[in-house]
């Protein structure tokens, strides 16, 4: 067995943890979530969610990784003999997430190239859906693999594979040390340029003017907890794996607070940049900001190209900055999502890092090919919905219930963190993890399930939701049980 990887420096670990937390959602999801849920008033539930759920879970995962120095399945097995499957659940969820995440990175790479000379033309919607994706008419119209999507997909996979092969300190750490300062610099330039555009103040007014009445709506609070939960890369084994590579003497609490606040600070800045430019677009088109405000794929690949078209000068540069930010933020997250899968497979089957990377990257690449077909966008959307709303949330519920209620490890973990950290964890940490987090996560899950059965997600056919949603969840469950059982019979981990 090879020696366990280690971070070369604490700064390298912190940058990698921030790089993992900062992802596509910070740029294309958070601004719209704020706008839709009370504007500036949303900051109140957001701060509360960050302090009572996001950071406590993040710190708990840091402690698990640091204390047990193992991948997620082995770490959970060390906590409780019968809990290895929770680690595998999280690892397999991470595997499915990375398969479609790489496809989106491929789109971002293409659009970074298209930014030179704003190749998307005037009708950005038709360009993205018809010209670039060649989106099929109906859900089951797979169509053929689209080379325009496949080539960037291959490129991002090749770079990712190379970084993963180089290992933790020479690959992941070096990549984050290079990409993170560039990413933060690009966002700063974009935000400063955005707020100096005509109409920016209107966009910022729409984003930040508080609607305190919205705080009486429980859905706003669920949105705040949901966003913080998805944004921090928690509950799919990433932070647990990253912290397992830390040396003995490490201030865990301070590192966790830095990562959590850097992620939130980044998305706050991204929201300002995005809404300032949306204000500019609305002013240029003579319409209200509400009419251009959107999220996700629509914001990045349809509305933003319109913003770039409307720029008075240096359109291409702004395009490169925006899509480059998407690419880099997604890229640092993608390598972090792959790492727990590589670590889990490596420890389970006693493989070298090279072999584990070959297996994981090879298999994830093959599965991801489905997203390069004409129907790829819809399949990606369904897999994303089910792995996030059920896979990650359930992974979080299992994890918290195991540690707080079954294994009763909170006191031990708190002592571990306090023994090596300057900022000490108090009883508030126990209360958050024992009561607030499981109740809120279960509530979120219940609300999503009720929505699911009241109307099919995005109006997709039931057959599609079963095949790409429920079946993926079934594979995660069966896979988790199979890998756990494998150890008992033949494994040597």
């Amino acid at each position, binding site marked *: 067995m090879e020696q366990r990887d280690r971070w070369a420096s604490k700064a390298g670990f912190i940058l990698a943890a921030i790089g993992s937390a900062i992802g596509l959602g910070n740029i294309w999801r958070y601004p719209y979530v704020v706008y839709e849920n009370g*504007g*500036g008033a949303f900051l109140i539930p957001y701060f509360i969610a960050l302090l009572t759920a996001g950071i406590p879970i993040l710190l708990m995962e840091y402690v698990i990784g640091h204390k047990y120095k193992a991948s997620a399945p082995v770490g959970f097995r060390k906590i409780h003999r019968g809990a290895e499957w929770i680690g595998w659940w999280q690892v397999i969820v991470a595997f499915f997430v990375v398969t479609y995440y790489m496809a989106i990175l491929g789109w971002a790479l293409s659009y970074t190239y298209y930014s030179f000379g704003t190749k998307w033309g005037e009708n950005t919607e038709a360009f993205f859906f018809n010209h670039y994706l060649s989106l099929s008419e109906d859900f089951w119209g797979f169509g053929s693999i689209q080379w325009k999507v496949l080539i960037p997909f291959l490129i991002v996979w090749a770079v990712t594979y190379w970084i993963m092969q180089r290992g933790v300190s020479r690959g992941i750490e070096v990549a984050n040390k290079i990409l993170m300062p560039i990413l933060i610099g690009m966002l700063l330039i974009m935000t400063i340029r955005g707020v100096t555009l005509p109409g920016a103040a209107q966009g*910022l007014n729409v984003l*930040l*003017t508080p609607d305190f009445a919205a705080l009486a709506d429980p859905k706003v609070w669920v949105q705040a907890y949901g966003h913080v939960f998805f944004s921090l890369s928690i509950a799919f084994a990433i932070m647990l794996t990253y912290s397992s590579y830390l040396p003995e003497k490490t201030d865990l609490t*301070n590192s966790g607070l830095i990562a959590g606040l850097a992620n939130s600070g980044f998305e*706050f800045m991204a929201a300002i940049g995005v809404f300032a430019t949306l204000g500019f677009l609305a002013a240029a088109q003579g319409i209200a900001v509400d009419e251009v405000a959107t999220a996700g794929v629509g914001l990045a690949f349809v509305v933003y190209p319109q913003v770039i078209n409307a720029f008075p000068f240096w359109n291409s540069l702004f395009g490169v900055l925006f899509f480059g930010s998407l690419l880099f933020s997604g890229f640092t997250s993608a390598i972090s999502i792959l790492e727990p899968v590589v670590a889990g497979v490596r420890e389970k089957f006693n493989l070298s890092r090279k072999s584990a990377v070959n297996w994981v990257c090879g298999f994830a690449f093959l599965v991801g090919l489905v997203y390069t077909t004409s129907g790829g966008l819809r399949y990606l959307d369904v897999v994303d919905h089910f792995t996030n709303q059920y896979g990650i949330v359930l992974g979080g519920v299992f994890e918290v219930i195991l540690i707080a209620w079954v294994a009763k490890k909170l006191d031990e973990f708190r002592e571990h963190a306090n023994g090596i950290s*300057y900022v000490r964890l108090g009883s508030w940490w126990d209360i958050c993890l024992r009561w607030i987090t499981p109740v809120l996560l279960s509530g979120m899950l219940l609300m999503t399930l009720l929505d699911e059965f009241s109307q099919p997600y995005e109006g997709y056919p039931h057959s599609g939701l079963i095949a790409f949603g429920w079946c993926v969840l079934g594979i995660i469950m069966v896979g988790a049980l199979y890998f756990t059982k494998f150890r008992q019979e033949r494994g040597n981990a």
Partner: protein
Amino acid sequence: MSVSAWIMFLIGAIGLWGGLAYFLWHHIKSEKRLKQENQS
């Protein structure tokens, strides 16, 4: 920008960027102290 929007901006900026700056400053300080301890 309206006054209420400015206030919410300041709350976000001080809470998030200010909080980050504080813990980063603390990290740098403790790293320096650790270095000095190792040297002496």
